[in-house]
């Protein structure tokens, strides 16, 4: 049965809450409780990871100047401000994903969310693109794409349409949705193989699909810069 792939506008769903749920988030929370936070450890703060290629390697598709600003200024500022914001707080010492999820706070975002989510998004974006990239996916991913979108070209068309219609600042994602219904804060009580699909997701500003327990596969930054 071909599952119709959904361009999931979950952003219009008002709260996509962090319920005890299937998937990796549950495991991470339990792990946190086992370790005593009283043990003194050095918090190094988050580092600005450079993209895994030189800044001029994406020419002519993306100029070095773009990467200089995008990584060297925007991404750097997010990381620096994030470190300043969370040092000494409860969020200090956690992984980037944990801070994203905790500061999302079920839609009632804490001040750190903007910086941490943008830091995560930009790091993910750096890895979503590469010199000599492009082409087509293969193997299992291609089969899933063909199952959920019909064909690779259909995916491209839907993705481009979604990105072009993502008003204002935001990101457009290809993500893997497992065990979740299309309705926010609903856990699928009878998860089936058909529920696991690829989806295209549009998010506003700094939000990313981690907050809804989707697994992002790739992203395009649709902020103006």
């Amino acid at each position, binding site marked *: 049965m071909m599952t119709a792939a959904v361009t999931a506008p979950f952003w219009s769903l008002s709260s996509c809450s962090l319920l005890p749920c299937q998937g990796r988030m549950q495991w991470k929370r339990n792990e946190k409780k086992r370790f005593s936070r009283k043990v003194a450890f050095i918090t190094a703060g988050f580092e600005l990871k450079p993209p895994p290629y030189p800044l001029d390697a994406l020419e002519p598709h993306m100029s070095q100047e773009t990467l200089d600003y995008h990584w060297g*200024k925007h991404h750097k500022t997010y990381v620096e401000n994030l470190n300043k914001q969370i040092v000494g707080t409860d969020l200090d010492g956690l992984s980037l994903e944990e801070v994203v999820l905790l500061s999302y706070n079920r839609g009632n975002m804490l001040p750190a969310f*903007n910086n941490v989510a943008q830091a995560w998004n930009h790091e993910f974006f750096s890895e979503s693109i590469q010199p000599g990239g492009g082409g087509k996916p293969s193997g299992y991913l291609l089969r899933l794409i063909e199952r959920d979108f019909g064909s690779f070209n259909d995916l491209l068309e839907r993705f481009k349409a979604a990105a072009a219609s993502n*008003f*204002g*600042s935001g990101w457009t994602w290809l993500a893997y949705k497992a065990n979740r219904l299309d309705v926010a804060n609903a856990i699928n009580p009878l998860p089936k193989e058909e529920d696991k699909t690829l989806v295209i997701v549009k998010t506003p*500003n*700094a939000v990313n699909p981690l907050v809804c327990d989707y697994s992002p596969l790739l992203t395009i930054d649709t*902020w*103006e810069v």
Partner: protein
Amino acid sequence: MAIRSLAGRRTLTGLKETSSRLLGFRSIQTFTLPDLPYDYSALEPAISGEIMQIHHQKHHQAYVTNYNNALEQLDQAVNKGDASGVVKLQSAIKFNGGGHVNHSIFWKNLAPVKEGGGEPPKGALGYAIDTHFGSLEGLVKKMSAEGAALQGSGWVWLGLDKELKKLVVDTTANQDPLVTKGGSLVPLVGIDVWEHAYYLQYKNVRPEYLKNVWKVINWKYASEVYEKECK
């Protein structure tokens, strides 16, 4: 005989309007890009000519074009009784229509220095600003701070609350017009803090843009709007 002469007309629009009139449908009012009352380079060095040209000819024009398209589609959906089609169009209308409304105000909010840009407001508005914010500097500081802190894309506004008869500073996201924050709010001064409004010149340093834009703000227009609404 009138119908024969109408049928003889070659222009499609003429025929469309006439048949609309005959059938009793009103054709929708579309919008055009307003002209700027100054040259693109007239606001330098506060805002570069390059930005003004792209902002006006590309961004604002795109909002106008897409707004007109959305209105056409809305008209068709309304006439067909397509309720879900009508609702689906709302976000495109809000975004593009808002973009047109906001930018039309913005061009009037700016003026070259030699035409009074940057000159502090006098009269009723000047007095109201001093009363509500202590001084013009106080207002500028507040608006610049809120504009700099706005996440993503949006606008920072000085508005008049018609009902409460007071000035307010507020922000809106994306292209939401000020009325979405309150039905009685009238925009007096709006500053576009989308990246396209400043990036080519100020790069990522939005606060620098917000420091300099005040040098070309047209307080005369804001005063006119204020006095009109206060009557």
